[in-house]
């Protein structure tokens, strides 16, 4: 094996640095799933009757569904009765009322992850909601956001404090019957983040949720609901990590976004769940349903994702472009190495007139990784003047990995325009030698080439996350020009 191949492999085999376990007492319910478990979760959260009924309806529907098999991913059957559906770090009281009451072990965990929750150490421009296993443990900058009318915090709190808003929008974008994993999530979701930005308010800081799975054999089923009222703007970030364990853990989240007239939501993800070891043992199954509805005229929803973690990723952040002139965007980098599998992409459903969507997907495969782009563009008859542009590029590092592209197009309106471009490239010995001949080390050359490949997506990320994403790809590109 020559030098550059070795470096490519080293680059692809970097150790998972977030794999530690926090030793904290957990309040977990017994394994398994039935109506009593759902009642127990709902009771623990002091939920209103309507929400319990909503969960039960979802559960009963879930029982009739079969796990989807159409994705290009392979894994042994999941025993849904062997999962713990609720686990929360044990608190002295019902829950921390302020950051001072948060268990120091938890604060240490987040500090170790680089997510400071103490006010004095906060990232100045980012408010964080920290979700640990099944519950939200802390939210920062809450008071300041409240003063502007912005509601941001845990889902559980929102259910108590803003039940009408939650009831109005919950399940309105991803119905309980949507798909197998969404139905399961609707039945057992334990917490998550809720955000409402009122009319005409531009949220001055990035809102962020940091998801951490800690407990063993626990599934994480969180729900995020973001509503941008007329003319509002919000940029939201999510990050995720988990300990290294040799069993697989299920993460089945649902994210719903609603943008009303002239509203804009920018949703960015850096997904770094534990991917399993080099032999493919362990890792998170990341089966997530994310969808945004551009309900209002001129509304806009942008999804940007950098997916580097998880043993298996199954997610398709999508946009329903209902309002006239609404805009949907999807920018994605998905990296699979070792034995990781990703089947990811988006759906853009054009319903309103002159709606536009942009899809830029960059798949990087290394080791034995398998990377699939699956995207659907649907232009309904009502969507006169609709436009879509899709670009799907794949890069292969090494010769044992795979890249697959499945674009689906359905156009029912003759005045629309749809463009699709796709490419597959192999990181070449030629490129690496060219860099080395100019004095650049192999390692720097590989990261430079991979970075160049992902650039169109990285520049969509908010600054704080762009940095993290670059680090995640094992790259330092300080002072990059252009």
């Amino acid at each position, binding site marked *: 094996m*020559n*030098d*550059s191949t070795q470096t490519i492999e080293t680059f692809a085999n970097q150790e998972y640095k977030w794999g530690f376990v926090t030793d904290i007492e957990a309040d977990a319910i017994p394994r398994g799933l039935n109506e009593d478990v759902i009642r127990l979760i709902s009771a623990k959260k002091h939920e209103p009757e309507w929400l319990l009924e909503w969960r039960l309806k979802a559960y009963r529907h879930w029982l009739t569904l079969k796990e989807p098999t159409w994705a290009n991913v392979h894994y042994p059957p999941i025993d849904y009765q062997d999962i713990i559906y609720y686990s929360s770090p044990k608190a002295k009281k019902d829950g921390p009322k302020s950051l001072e009451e948060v268990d120091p072990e938890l604060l240490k965990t987040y500090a170790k992850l680089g997510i400071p929750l103490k006010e004095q150490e906060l990232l100045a421009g980012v408010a964080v909601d920290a979700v640990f296993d099944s519950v939200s443990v802390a939210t920062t900058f809450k008071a300041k956001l409240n003063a502007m009318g912005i509601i941001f915090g845990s889902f559980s709190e929102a259910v108590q404090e803003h039940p009408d808003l939650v009831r109005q929008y919950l399940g309105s974008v991803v119905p309980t019957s949507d798909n197998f994993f969404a139905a399961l999530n609707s039945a057992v979701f334990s917490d998550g983040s809720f955000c409402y930005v009122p009319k005409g308010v531009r949220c001055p800081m990035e809102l962020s949720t940091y998801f951490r799975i800690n407990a063993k054999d626990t599934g994480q089923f969180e729900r995020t609901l973001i509503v941008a009222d007329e003319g509002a703007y919000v940029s939201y970030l999510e990050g995720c990590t988990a300990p290294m364990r040799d069993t697989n853990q299920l993460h089945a989240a649902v994210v719903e976004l609603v943008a009303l007239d002239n509203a804009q939501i920018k949703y960015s993800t850096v997904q770094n769940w534990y991917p399993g070891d080099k032999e493919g043992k362990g890792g998170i199954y990341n089966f997530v349903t994310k969808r945004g509805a551009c309900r209002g005229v001129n509304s806009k929803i942008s999804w940007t994702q950098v997916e580097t973690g998880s043993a298996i990723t199954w997610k398709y952040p999508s946009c329903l472009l209902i309002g006239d002139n609404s805009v949907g965007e999807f920018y994605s980098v998905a990296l699979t190495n070792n034995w990781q599998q990703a089947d990811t992409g988006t759906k853009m459903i054009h319903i309103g007139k002159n709606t536009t969507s942009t899809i830029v997907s960059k798949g990087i495969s290394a080791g034995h990784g398998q990377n699939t782009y699956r995207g659907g563009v649907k232009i309904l008859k009502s969507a006169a003047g609709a436009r879509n542009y899709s670009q799907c590029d794949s890069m292969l590092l090494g010769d044992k990995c795979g890249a697959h592209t499945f674009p689906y197009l359905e156009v029912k309106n003759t005045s629309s325009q749809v463009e699709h471009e796709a490419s597959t*490239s192999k990181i*070449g*010995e*030629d*490129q690496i*030698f*060219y*860099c*080395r*001949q*100019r*004095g*650049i*080390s*192999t390692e*720097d050359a590989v990261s*430079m*080439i991979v*970075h*160049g*490949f*992902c*650039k*169109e997506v990285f520049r969509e990320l908010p600054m704080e996350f762009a940095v993290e994403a670059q680090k995640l790809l094992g790259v330092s*590109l300080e*002072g*990059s*020009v*252009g």
Partner: protein
Amino acid sequence: MALLEIKDLHATVGEREILQGISLTVEAGEVHAIMGPNGSGKSTLAQVLAGRELYAVTGGQVLYQGQDLLAMPPEDRARAGIFLAFQYPVEIPGVSNMYFLKAALNAIRKQQGTDELDAFDFLNLVREKMTLLDMDQALLNRPVNTGFSGGEKKRNEIFQMAVLEPKLAILDETDSGLDIDALKLVAHGVNALRGAERSMIVVTHYQRLLNYIVPDYVHVLAEGRIVKSGGKELALQLEESGYAGLGIADEEEAVGKV
């Protein structure tokens, strides 16, 4: 001490021996032309000197500034002042020319113990060198060689050479694919970089380039060996009588492509 001393160099690719005992000495400031028909091993020689791993060196020695060049990885050779202008410059999508060149220059400067250039000083340097090759500033912000025309790629190579200021520049068929105007421009750039401290090895199939870049010495390569060496007049002789005049078979001439 000569800048470069090649002694009985043998190299293979796969089972095939391409260099079959090359010896050549290049002193500081000299320009050597290596001419030869296709398959004679001229590009292989250029690549072996730059450290391409595709070729296995099976015998001989190369000393660069008295050091064992063959023991050095390609990036160390570059940092020690060896520059290869590629026959087929490689595209690197998404990486701006400017960023690439700055990374290269700073890697070299670091090795040589000089301070890395900041963005301002680098920009000034780049602007100065661009005028030399009449380069469009837009090329700087475009990804490395991506979407460049053949001529732009070759000009970009010489532009990089101008910025990196090597001690030994190896130009591998820099003239191929260039029309006469582009050739003159590239040659002008190369000539401006000639000096007592800079040696060059100019690899070419045709004499045409040597009208513009006049060499001190000309070596004719055939079947992996230098079969004839002389002054610049040797190139003219080749122009008149062709490789056949020296008793060398040239596939291209044989099929009438010249």
